[in-house]
């Protein structure tokens, strides 16, 4: 409802408008209004320009990479050895890097998706308001922690713990330590977004289920969760997208050895860690290794873009309409 403050403001604006009603100032106002609109449109188009700039740069540089004599498109897309750095004929199969990324992401998802969802169910269906008031800020804090902190946590706490208490096979760089840290990083995303989705389900459904004699477990798991499924799946996809694009944690804790493996104790190299290795040196863009990181970036961008679009589709296609 309009309050006194805003009505005065509206009246002031109106008096300004009405008081300057001469033809010349009206034209000035028109011009200014149009200029402001133009600048607003310019702001909005920046987002489009950004997307096209990213696409353009990645495509051009990847094209230049793939046209270099040492590189073949088929090898890049199907090869399972990534060894560009070691003189002689480099090998440029991208799959070891993708495999490293997927391994770390799988470990992160295996941890964060269930724990996040269960936490969300608890917060939305079971928890007393006081508990919610304590746990929600905890999740917000976790969400705001910079990823380099999680990377440090991985190498100073998680990996020594794995080495000392689980198996000696966990050396300084391993996929499990990095994967768990990435999982902790995406946990708040899953929990917050899933909780939003669960709370958006109308009370009526829950009441009806309770009236029919279901326990809270039955209600939550068999009624509310399926109703909020699109939001939950969208949250999972967003979390996985973040995990795939994560850079600092894997740069610190996962390692520098690109290979095809699913051993969590193994040292792996993700796509983002490779890019860090190449760009961190800021060599002039002429070497084939340096150019390869653009191609890897293109693959990464394609994967995350695909996942984002799938997430949006899921949200739109399966969203339940209640009224």
């Amino acid at each position, binding site marked *: *409802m309009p309050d006194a403050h805003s*009505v005065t403001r*509206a009246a002031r604006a*109106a008096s300004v*408008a*009405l008081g300057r009603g001469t033809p010349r100032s009206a034209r000035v106002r028109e011009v200014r*209004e149009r200029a402001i609109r133009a600048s*607003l449109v310019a*702001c*909005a188009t*920046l*987002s*489009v320009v*950004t*997307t096209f700039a990213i696409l353009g*740069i*990645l495509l051009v540089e990847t094209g230049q990479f793939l046209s270099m004599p040492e590189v073949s498109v088929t090898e890049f897309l199907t090869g399972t050895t990534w060894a560009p750095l070691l003189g002689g004929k480099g090998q440029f199969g991208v799959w070891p890097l993708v495999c490293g990324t997927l391994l770390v992401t799988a470990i992160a998802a295996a941890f964060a998706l269930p*724990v996040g969802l*269960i*936490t969300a169910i*608890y*917060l939305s269906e079971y928890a007393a308001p006081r508990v919610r008031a*304590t*746990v929600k800020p*905890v*999740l917000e804090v*976790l969400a*705001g*922690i*910079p990823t*380099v*902190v999680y*990377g*440090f*946590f991985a190498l100073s706490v998680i990996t020594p713990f794995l080495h000392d208490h689980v198996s000696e096979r966990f050396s300084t760089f391993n996929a499990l330590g990095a994967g768990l840290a990435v999982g*902790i990083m995406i946990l708040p995303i899953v929990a917050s977004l899933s909780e939003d989705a669960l709370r958006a389900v109308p009370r*009526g459904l829950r009441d*009806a*289920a309770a009236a*029919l*004699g279901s326990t809270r*477990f*039955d*209600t939550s798991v068999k*009624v509310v969760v399926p*109703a909020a499924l699109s939001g939950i799946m969208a949250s999972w996809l967003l979390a996985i997208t973040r995990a795939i*694009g*994560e*850079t600092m944690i894997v*740069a*610190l804790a996962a390692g520098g050895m690109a290979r095809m493996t699913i051993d969590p104790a193994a040292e792996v190299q993700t796509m983002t860690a490779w*890019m*860090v290795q190449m*760009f961190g040196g800021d060599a002039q863009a002429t070497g084939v290794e340096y150019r390869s990181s*653009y191609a890897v*970036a293109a693959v*990464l961008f394609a994967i*995350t873009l695909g*996942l*984002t679009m799938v997430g949006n589709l899921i949200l739109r296609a399966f969203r339940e309409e209640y009224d």
Partner: protein
Amino acid sequence: MLAGTAADARIRPAGELLDAATPRSQALRRAADRGFLVLCLGFTALAVLILGVLLFSIWQDGHLRVSMDFLGNYASRKPADAGIRAALWGTVWACGICAVTALPVGVGTAVWLEEFAKPSRFTSFIKLNISNLAGVPSIVYGILGLTAFVRAFGMVDADRPIEIGDPDTFLYLRLPFGNGVLAGGLTLMLVVLPIVIVASQEALRAVPRSLRAGSLALGATPWQTTWSITLPAAVPMIMTGAILAVSRAIGEAAPILVLGVPIFIRSVPNNLMSDFTVMPMQIYDWANRPAGPFHELAAAGIIVLLAVLLTFNAVAVVIRQRLHRPLQ
């Protein structure tokens, strides 16, 4: 029963339970309920516990090294003399530039989308772009920043840059920007822009339609309405979004790394083209060294970084509570 709604499909499972209400299955269901509650409590407690372990271990590693000296010293090869001064000021400059550029552009975009634009293919295309950009990994923004800002797409020869002014003063510009703090700030702006846009959109949507209608009815132009009525009403939520965005920018290391900032730097930026580093980068450098005093420095750096972020978030909470009242 509720008829003809999507809710039908949901009620069915509960209906099935009615038929199976034998004592034994009831006991099982109750056991499942209790078991699930235990699981929920356990996992939620796990989340809280992880945060506790994280903060405690970092505090333990680093609190002894946090001091006024640590804030005032530059990085050094000797751990006892090392400090975070260059990184702290680099963060201030880079994130300041980020905030100053992201806010107008982000709010402007949101204003156009919410207040001015008629829904069309173009606006849906823009909305699609924004939502896609939110999912792009930050290292890709670093690549964009490297090509667009540091190297100006190769359009200006880096050997013969266009220079205006004196590098020793504040008024100095150079094209291409090189890996100075302006390039860093603009790259961070690209990273946080989707956040600012979405938060501003939500803020604008929360302003009641009646305010705008009233103003327009009294003869104000749409822009006058936006500037004098809608925006001021949306300011608290926009500021919360801005603070969220800057918090994100403060913690970003990957884009800055790709720009190619030096590892070792013992100066504070004095103009927009200055070399710089940011706190996450300094922490990354220290964390990469073998365990020992440098890891303690990394932990101390993290404590400073988290303290800065906590302050920001506290300010956001205060703003939310203080300024939100008028609209209610």
